[in-house]
């Protein structure tokens, strides 16, 4: 790395440090991990306001999050990941945040990777940055069926947005104000990640994928089962297919 590159990095870091930024953590029964994730975000960058969206947990998720120093929004009942995340973007929109990052409350996303996620936004080269498990070093090994499913979705999403997306189901991402306003306004309901990428791209937001390492879950269990996976693939395929025939207006800056 040259000195010029280093100083550029510093400029970007400074730009981020002066920008109001929110970390959105959707969490459902993650009392075992959410506190640690909140602590890790604060350690990475104390300037982040952290908002845990408790999607109807029946355990102490909200208490643990508050104890770790996060604001908590408790949904009155389980609305699903899409609705939960959208609540976070609405908070970001209503409180004037310029950057929002989305991190799972289960601990599989390492907050230290936020550095890579935020860089293109600080530089102004992307409106939305998605952390990919499949770019760069292949540390992540998913079970075969899931890998296949992701492959298929990756091909479909890439085809629709005419840009290579290696990890369309990743829920680890950062957006600027444009992305915040878009997602606050419209966000897919269940299993939203792949559709959200298409939504953003079709609204002419600039998408960038960056390689990130992901951890295995710290606690709790993934909510994915065989029947659900099947429903997931059918539902998402249908939604992606229909999206091809929709019109998406370009966004004005708000």
């Amino acid at each position, binding site marked *: 790395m040259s000195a010029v590159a280093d100083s550029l990095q510093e400029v970007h870091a400074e730009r981020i440090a002066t920008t109001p930024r929110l970390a959105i953590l959707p969490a459902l029964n993650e009392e075992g991990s959410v506190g640690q994730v909140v602590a890790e975000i604060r350690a990475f960058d104390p300037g982040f306001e952290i908002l845990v969206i408790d999607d109807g947990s029946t355990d102490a998720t909200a208490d643990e999050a508050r104890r770790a120093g996060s604001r908590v929004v408790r949904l*009155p009942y389980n609305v699903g990941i899409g609705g939960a995340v959208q609540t976070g973007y609405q908070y970001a929109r209503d409180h004037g945040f310029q950057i929002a990052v989305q991190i799972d409350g289960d601990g599989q996303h390492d907050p230290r990777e936020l550095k890579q996620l935020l860089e293109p936004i600080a530089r102004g080269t992307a409106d939305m940055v998605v952390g990919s498990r499949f770019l760069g070093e292949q540390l992540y090994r998913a079970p075969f069926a899931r890998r296949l499913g992701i492959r298929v979705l990756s091909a479909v999403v890439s085809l629709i947005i005419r840009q290579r997306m290696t990890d369309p189901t990743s829920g680890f991402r950062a957006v600027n104000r444009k992305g915040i306003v878009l997602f606050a306004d419209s966000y897919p*309901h*269940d299993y939203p990640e792949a559709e959200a990428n298409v939504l953003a791209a079709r609204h002419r937001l600039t998408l960038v994928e960056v390689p990130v390492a992901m951890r295995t879950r710290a606690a709790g269990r993934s909510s994915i089962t065989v029947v659900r996976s099947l429903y997931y693939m*059918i539902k998402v395929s249908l939604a992606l297919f229909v999206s091809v025939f929709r019109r998406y207006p370009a966004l004005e800056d708000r």
Partner: protein
Amino acid sequence: MTPLRISIVAAVAAVIVLVVVFELIRSRRLQERYALLWLLTGLVIFVLAVWRGLLGWMAGLVGIAYPPSALFVLASIFILIVLLHYSTVISELSERNLALAQRLALLEQELKEIGEARRGDPRS
């Protein structure tokens, strides 16, 4: 064998169902999750309308002498399934509606008390 005219009418009807459902999803008046059963219904009716041998075989299997009746029976079964599905959806909605009303009432009461406490406080 199913009369050709019935097959054609059934196939056209199924295609109309599929197109209408698609357009409803596209214009965001129907969510994908509530469209899946309709799409399945349309697809099954379409396949059986076009593949007349399969319809005849299925009718024979359950002892229906006139194959087009089997088409009707099947369509009715699907409509029943869709209706039953909606009953569960309505139940869930009413449950959530109740939860929202309760939460709202409790929040309103709390907000009112906070407001009153503030008004009673001369410093504010």
